[in-house]
């Protein structure tokens, strides 16, 4: 197990390096520059700014400047938010997205797995159909529709919740982002859980457990749940990264100031270092959580050995 984990960490380094290289050159090959705007600057000022950020040098030199900074943990200055470094901006916005994300993840996990199990145990009954109907609705209702509908219902018609803002993460400000974030994940998790739970409940060892006369809750929680969770866990790894790194929709509608908006705005405004910073963050998290999923697999399924 230890060798497996260290091997995964070693493998991650070249992967990350390729990720950084490719996204750096892709980003710089896109037309436009961070300082090209409709109100153009005097050419002398532009030249000064470009010189300050090394933008007048060949891209390959810029790449090595960037890598040099990166090794020291410096993600560079933002081209858009003056006087802020990317480290500061990410340190500011990532905790917000992470807090929304972790709550959404917990809600999605508990409700999704719960719904999936209930639907699987009552397969082809009205319970199953209504739970799965809801799950399908969660998949087809995009969150950019859900978010305005939430505001319309909770804030404008009923005045129950503040329509936006963050306020240090007080719970009234969390409710709507969590709803908008978690619905589609609840639906996906419920679908996957239902499918694998049905398959597990038909397998031989469950029949044995039932023949032994074990009570139903013990069959479900001690015998069926563990193997049934395997496909769910492989979905949860990438899903967790997606949830935690936020959503531009949530940030835009609820004004939470998470990391999702930075990425989109950064890419649109050619804020090179911002895009790179978020890309590196997401890439690292993806690799990390894929490794965690592999480890969890080995813990849950004794058939898997590394």
């Amino acid at each position, binding site marked *: 197990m230890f060798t497996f984990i260290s091997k995964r960490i070693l493998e991650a380094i070249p*992967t*990350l390096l*390729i*990720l950084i290289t*490719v*996204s750096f050159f*892709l*980003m710089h*090959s*896109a*037309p*436009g520059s961070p300082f090209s705007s409709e109100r153009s600057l005097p050419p002398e000022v532009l030249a000064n700014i470009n010189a300050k950020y090394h933008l007048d040098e060949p891209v390959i030199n810029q790449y090595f400047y960037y890598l040099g900074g990166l090794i020291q943990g410096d993600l560079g200055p933002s081209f858009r938010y003056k006087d802020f470094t990317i480290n500061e901006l990410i340190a500011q916005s990532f905790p917000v997205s992470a807090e929304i994300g972790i709550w959404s993840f917990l809600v999605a996990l508990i409700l999704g797995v719960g719904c999936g199990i209930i639907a699987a145990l009552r397969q082809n009954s009205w319970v199953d159909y209504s739970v799965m109907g809801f799950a*399908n*609705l969660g*998949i*087809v*209702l*995009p969150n*950019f*529709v859900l978010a*305005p509908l939430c505001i*319309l219902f909770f804030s*404008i018609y009923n005045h129950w919740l503040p329509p936006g803002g963050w306020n240090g993460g007080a719970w009234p400000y969390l409710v709507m982002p969590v709803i908008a974030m978690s619905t589609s994940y609840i639906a996906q998790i419920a679908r996957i859980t239902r*499918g694998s739970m049905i*398959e597990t409940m038909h397998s031989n060892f469950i029949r044995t457990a039932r023949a032994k006369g074990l009570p139903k809750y013990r069959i479900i929680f001690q015998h069926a749940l563990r193997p049934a969770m395997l496909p769910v866990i492989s979905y949860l790894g990438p899903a967790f990264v997606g949830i935690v*790194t936020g959503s*531009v*929709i949530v940030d835009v509608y609820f004004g939470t100031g998470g990391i999702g908006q930075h*990425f*989109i705005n950064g*890419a*649109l405004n050619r804020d090179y270092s911002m*895009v790179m910073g*978020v*890309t590196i963050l*997401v*890439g690292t998290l*993806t*690799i990390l959580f*894929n490794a965690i999923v592999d480890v969890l697999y080995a813990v849950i399924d004794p058939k898997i050995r590394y």
Partner: protein
Amino acid sequence: MITTKDKIQAVEQFAEKVVEIEGRSLWQDARRRFFSNHAAVISLVILTMIAAIALLAPLFSQWHYEDIDWEALSDISVLGRPNIENGHYFGTDTLGRDIFVRTMQGGQISLLVGIMGSAVAIVIGTLYGATSGYLGGRVDSVMMRFLEILNSFPFMFFVIILMTLFGRHIFLIFVAIGAISWLDMARIVRGQTLSLKNKEYIEAAYACGVSTPKIILRHIVPNVLGIVVVYATLLVPNMILLESFISFLGLGVQEPMTSWGALISEGAQNMEIAIWQLAWPLGFLVVTLFCFNFLGDGLRDALDPKDR
């Protein structure tokens, strides 16, 4: 000699009989299973109807998707309401354009974009997965490592880079998006190929001297088509959703053309005074996505008996 001749005759006769009996193929079985799934069949019918309406209805409407109804423009919240008499069956948008025709025109774009993106993704994914799985060994691990690297890129990063490279050509963007969303497809096909490649008929083809590309195209790919079809029906709604997300960000189709996502985005801004601007395109989008999901589930049950 005589005995062998008899034997040959017997075999020939038997062969003729076999042809007469005509067994049920895998696909016929699948078709039977599919048609017994009512939700999937109904979804297919509804989808066909939506596609037909989206294509044909604009021809019969008295409004064109660019036309501005200056009369309705004077008071959208009253005159812009859905109304049979003046031809605005679904009402008008804030610029006085007919929502019915725009929804249909947006439907054409959304469906076309979804189908094109998925088609590209499926061709690349199937070929990549089948090649990687069939060749195995070092080629396989290099191809899979490449896939893993692509997978750790944030998806939106690609989309936005493509957007800046291709400008506002929505179809080009979606061909490009298709070209980067084949990763799951490739992984699924590879898994299937691994179990297929030790089958006797592959070995037989290899023994006959069939070349590797031909084995992949003629023997592996047709046998993984079942799972590919299932995945395709689930990919199309994802593409449509992605298109509406991009249009929602204001980066998608260019005015005066529109798509469901763009219409929803406009509608959501005016939902307090003119809910029909949101309701109609949203209704069409949700019904379409619902149907694709049910269709996908039905096809999975039909083509992948193990999963039931």
